[in-house]
């Protein structure tokens, strides 16, 4: 069985907006969400720009409809907000016999609370509030969201660093396509933490000026937070309710770069393979891709590696491409989901999103990203890349209906 995978709903929250409408508005206005770190107490507060969701945990609880007394990590609140929006926008209504799943993803999990716990625990292991550590593991946010949304048949979490939520969409698509599930909410969520801020800082790959993807002068990434989810449904599920889908997931591919723990291979082998796999599955020729939403973190290594892989695959016909990470920052485990939403929006709005902060072309590449917003574009097939530590490379292709 190889059924079509329809996208019927999208949900998002990021530094550029708390829902699809706000986020779309930011995209159209070229408004970046990068700014100062305000919600975490860090010695790096004034040196390192980040892309925060402009809401405290208390406000997020209200937006998510979670009772104040319940214990939720920031990641799970972000996730629930976006999942609720995705489900509402899809118009999906439950009915007996419909098999539903949630495939979520995160790299940070409940670390925002764990690091508070650890501060006290490390001095005395009888200290630290247990309430702060019970949300730590990756599965916590997924189970909380599944519980809140009444999804039970398949509930699971992927954690493959920065490709995590792209892999969620990949698995979700396969579960629909194989007939195992009728509806899947797929995507991911991640919040900013002291852990990741210091982690990436120790790797010396944070650009203190804010990221400039694919710019020759780029010097690293900017961390962000947020959540992005798609509602995927089978053809049957869509038809029985007479709803219209937004787009389809027409292709997907995952490959391992197998080059180094953190760095990507110079010629982007893993990226090349994942994009090729996605194209093969979509039965598309590279020339049929209208827009690439690149992984484009702004690190010297990724953008060169990914750029080379794109060049190898598309040769002299590289389609319009951009990285939207100068809008949202690098949202780690949520990136794939957030950028999937951007890709679907590119199709429905007929737009090519600009690669903000780009000005100097890279010497090594023969092509440049789109620096400006393009409207009324022919956007039917969008390729979206998400590449994670450990060489985990995933490419998704979305096609308009």
């Amino acid at each position, binding site marked *: 069985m190889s059924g079509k995978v329809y996208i019927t709903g999208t949900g998002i929250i990021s530094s550029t907006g708390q829902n699809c409408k706000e986020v779309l508005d930011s995209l159209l206005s070229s408004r970046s969400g990068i700014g100062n770190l305000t919600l975490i107490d860090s010695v790096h507060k004034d040196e390192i720009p980040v892309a925060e969701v402009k809401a405290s945990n208390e406000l997020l609880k209200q937006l998510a409809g979670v009772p104040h007394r319940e214990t939720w990590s920031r990641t799970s609140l972000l996730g629930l907000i976006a999942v609720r929006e995705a489900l509402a926008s899809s118009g999906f209504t439950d009915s007996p016999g419909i098999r539903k799943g949630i495939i979520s993803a995160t790299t940070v999990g409940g670390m925002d609370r764990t690091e508070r716990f*650890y501060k006290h625990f490390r001095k005395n292991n009888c200290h630290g509030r247990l309430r702060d550590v019970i949300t730590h*593991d990756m599965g916590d946010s997924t*189970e909380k969201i599944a519980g809140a949304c009444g999804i039970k048949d398949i509930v*699971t979490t992927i954690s493959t660093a920065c490709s995590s939520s792209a892999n969620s969409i990949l698995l979700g698509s*396969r579960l629909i396509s194989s007939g195992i599930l009728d509806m899947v909410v797929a995507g991911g969520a991640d919040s900013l933490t002291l852990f990741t801020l*210091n*982690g990436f800082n120790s790797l010396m790959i944070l650009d203190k000026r804010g990221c400039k993807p694919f710019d020759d002068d780029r010097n690293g990434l900017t961390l962000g937070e947020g959540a992005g989810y798609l509602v995927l449904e089978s053809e049957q599920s869509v038809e029985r309710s007479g709803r219209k889908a937004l787009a389809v997931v027409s292709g997907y591919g995952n490959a391992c770069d197998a080059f180094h723990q953190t760095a990507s291979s110079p010629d982007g082998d893993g990226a090349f393979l994942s994009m090729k796999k996605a194209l093969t599955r979509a039965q598309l020729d590279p020339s049929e891709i209208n827009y690439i939403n690149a992984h484009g973190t702004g690190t010297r290594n990724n953008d060169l590696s990914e750029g080379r892989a794109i060049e190898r695959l598309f040769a002299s016909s590289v389609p319009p491409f951009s990285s939207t990470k100068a809008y949202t920052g690098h949202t780690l485990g949520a990136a794939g989901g957030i950028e999937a939403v951007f890709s679907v929006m590119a199709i429905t709005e007929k737009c090519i999103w600009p690669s903000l902060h780009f000005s100097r072309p890279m010497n090594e590449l023969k092509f440049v990203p789109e620096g400006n917003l393009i409207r009324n574009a022919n956007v039917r097939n969008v390729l979206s890349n998400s590449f994670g*530590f450990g*060489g985990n490379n995933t490419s998704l292709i979305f096609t308009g209906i």
Partner: protein
Amino acid sequence: MEAYINGYSSISPQNSFTEEMFLQEPRDYNGVRFLKCVEPQYTGLLDPMAARRMSRIIKMGVTAAMRCLKNAGLEKPGAIITGTGMGCVEDTGRFLSSIYENEEKLLNPTPFIQSTHNTVAATIALMLKCNGYNSTYGHRGFSFETALLDALMLLAEGEADEILAGALDELTPDLFTITDRLGFWKKEPVNNLRLGEYKTHGSIAGEGVAFLALSRNKTEKSVAAITSVRTLFNPEGFDEVEELLKNQAKPNLVILGINGDNEGDRLYQKLRSGIFSNIPALYYKHLCGEYDTSTAFATTLAARIIKDQHVPEIMKTDDHHYGTINNILIYNHLRNRDHSSIVVSSC
């Protein structure tokens, strides 16, 4: 969907890595509240330069994976899929500590890099130069089951012909202390091999790594097959659990996740007086302790039982008679929220 098991390997609190007959002489731990893995000597198994940064869980994971591939006569799988409930806990704790100790300045990056859940899957791929599909599931009691489900799907889709699938979880002093404070473990030290006898609250903590080499087609190395993997999240009542287990292939025996916790084990007792009443039951957590991905270890035990057509005394809970063993149903629940079943069959 099904997959043939062509090889398996585990590092556990038993001598499962080094001794073929480890179940005949199980390790007896007296006065314990947790079990730690019996690790092999890594010299000769791991290149020292390659292993220089590896934490304990990575060493165990990579070593068990390589042994599994060797047992299966497989040089490089087409895909690598792992599951882990808590991920790389030691490195996570190490980096967290360093943040506070050094006041966020001049931090060593290595523990951060190795704290990501997919580190083991990635390291295996790196060592084998395997560019195939690679994924890691981090979801409590479903981590291994989802990895297996993904593997079965991948084989059915034809994306890969041979897959290395496994799961890993490590126990660190901090993790034990925290979970102890949460009330997961028996307060009184116990003897692991008598875990089923204590009718008190809590279990004993454990850890382990287990890998399976799976293929779509039967090979001469095939010892058993995985014929079903199912999960059930947060059932509202016992009937949902029965529903999960009822319609599975008629098992000759069941392997249950009995863990010594009187409350949690009640569920297994109910099944044993109900739908499993005429089916011999085995248990395994007295050998490895309780941890999110223990069913991976149980699956290697099931494969072994089918291969040898022999039921180890140490796993028995009753005096049932054993004939030919064609189907083994593994059923486990993690704190009555994540319920799963895996069927291992002869082939």
